[in-house]
C-alpha cells in the first residue's frame, strides 16, 4: 500500500469532517450538511487496500462522532460495512467510468446514513426524525453521488503531484532472449 495515498485520504477525511460541521452553505441550500466521507470510502474501497479502508472508517467515524451528538462509536461500523461491500466486489465493478463512480457514491451516500441511523436508534437515542429526514437522506445520496467522480479526479491529480509513477517495464524479457551460437 502506498503510504502517501493513505495519508492523503486520511487528511481529506479530517477536512471532510471539519467541512461537514463548519460549512453552512449546503445546509442552507439543501437542508442537509455536505457529507464527504461516503465518497472517500468508495475511493478507498476501489483504489486502496483493506487496511486503508479500515483506518479511514475508524478515524473518520470517530472524528465525526466526536463533533456530533451521535453516541460515540456509531459511525465507524456503517462506514466500514459500506466500504467492505464495495471492496469485496471491486474486481467485478466498473471503476473508471464517471457514471459508475456516481452510482457507487450515491449508494454509499444512501447506505452510510441508513446504517448509522439504525445504530443510533438501537442505542436508545432519540434523534430528530420525520418527513424532513427522507429529504435529507435523498439530498445526501445525490450529493455523495455527484461528489464521488469529482473526488476521484481530485485525488488522481494530487497523487500525480505527490506520488512517483511506477516504473514501467520494457518489452525485453530475458527468458525470451534468443541466444545464438553454441554455448
Amino acid at each position, binding site marked *: 500500500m502506498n503510504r502517501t495515498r493513505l495519508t492523503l485520504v486520511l487528511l481529506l477525511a*479530517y477536512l471532510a*469532517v*471539519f467541512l*461537514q*460541521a*463548519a460549512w*453552512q452553505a449546503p*445546509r*442552507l441550500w439543501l*437542508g*442537509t*450538511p455536505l*457529507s464527504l466521507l461516503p465518497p472517500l470510502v468508495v475511493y478507498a474501497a476501489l483504489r486502496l487496500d*483493506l*487496511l486503508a*479502508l*479500515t483506518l479511514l*472508517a*475508524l478515524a473518520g467515524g*470517530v*472524528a*465525526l*462522532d*466526536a*463533533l*456530533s*451528538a*451521535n*453516541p*460515540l*462509536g*456509531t459511525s*465507524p*461500523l456503517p462506514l*466500514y460495512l459500506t466500504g*467492505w461491500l464495495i471492496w469485496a466486489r471491486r474486481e467485478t465493478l466498473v471503476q473508471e467510468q464517471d457514471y459508475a463512480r456516481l452510482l457507487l457514491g450515491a449508494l454509499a451516500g444512501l447506505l452510510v*446514513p441508513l446504517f*448509522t*441511523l439504525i445504530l*443510533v436508534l438501537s*442505542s436508545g437515542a*432519540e*434523534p*430528530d*426524525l*420525520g*418527513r*424532513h*429526514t427522507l*429529504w*435529507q437522506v435523498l439530498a*445526501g445520496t445525490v450529493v455523495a453521488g455527484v461528489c464521488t467522480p469529482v473526488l476521484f479526479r481530485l485525488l488522481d491529480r494530487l497523487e500525480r503531484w505527490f506520488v512517483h509513477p511506477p516504473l514501467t517495464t520494457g518489452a525485453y524479457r530475458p527468458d525470451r532472449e534468443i541466444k545464438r551460437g553454441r554455448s
Partner: protein
Amino acid sequence: MLKRPQWLAWGAVALVTLVLLNLPDQWAARVKVAVGVLFLPLFGLVGSAQHLAGEASRALAPRDELHRQLEALRRDHQQLQLELVRAREALEENRRLRHLLDWHPPGPWKTRVCRVLARDPASWWQSLTLDAGARDGLRSGLPVLVPEGLVGRVDHVAETTAEVILVGDPRCRVAVIVRETGDTGVLSTRSAGVLDHRLVDLTHLPRLLAVRPGHTVLTSGLGGVFPPGLPVGTVVDTRSVGYGLYAEARVQLHADPARLREVLVLLP
C-alpha cells in the same frame, strides 16, 4: 469465504465499535472532547479569516455610506434613549409595586456573547458548538437566545467549548405560553414541513382551542430551565388531534437556527 486479513479488519472495527458504544458517559464525553480538540485549529483559522474579511469590508466601505449609517444610528440612538427613560420609569414602578406586595423578583440575568463554531455534522441532531465553555462560566441547562428569540439550551460543556441543543430537537422541550390567550403548551420536535426548518410543533394545548394563527408564543417559565417571557415564535396554524381530545399548533420560530453566527447565553 472471508480470508484472514478480512477477519482481522472486521474484528478491529467491531471491537472499537463495541468498546466505544459501551464506554461510560463520562469517558465517552472525554474521548469526544479529546478528539474534538484536534479540530480547534481549523475552527480558529476560519474564525480569524472571517474576522479579517469583516475588517477588510469595513475598510473598503465608502465614506458616504458610513455617514449615512452613522446618521441612521444617531436617530435610532435618540429614539432608544427616549424608550429607555420610559422603561426605567416602568421598572421603578414595577419594583415599588413588587415591594408593596412583598414579592421578591428573580435575580437579573447576565449575558455572554458566544460565537457559533460548528453545527452537528449529522443531519438528525439539531445542535451547535459554541466557542465558550466551563472556564467562561457556562454550564449545562443555561438558556441560549438571539435578539429575535429563543434558540435552545446549553447541554454538554467542555473547558473551552459548549454544545447547544436547539429548539426543535427532541432533547430540548420548552414550556411556552401563548401571549394573547394565556394557553400553555410544550414546544416539541420539528414539524413535518420539509422546506421551512423553522417550524416546530406546539403540543399539549387545551382542547377548546382559542389559539389563532399570528398569536405570539413566549416561554412560560414552567420547569425552571427558561425564564418566563422570552420570545419564541408565532403560531402558523392549529389542528385538533386525538379525535378532538387535545390540540396542537405549528409555530414558526423567530430565530432562524440555520443562520446563527453569534448567540447570547443567559448566565444567572
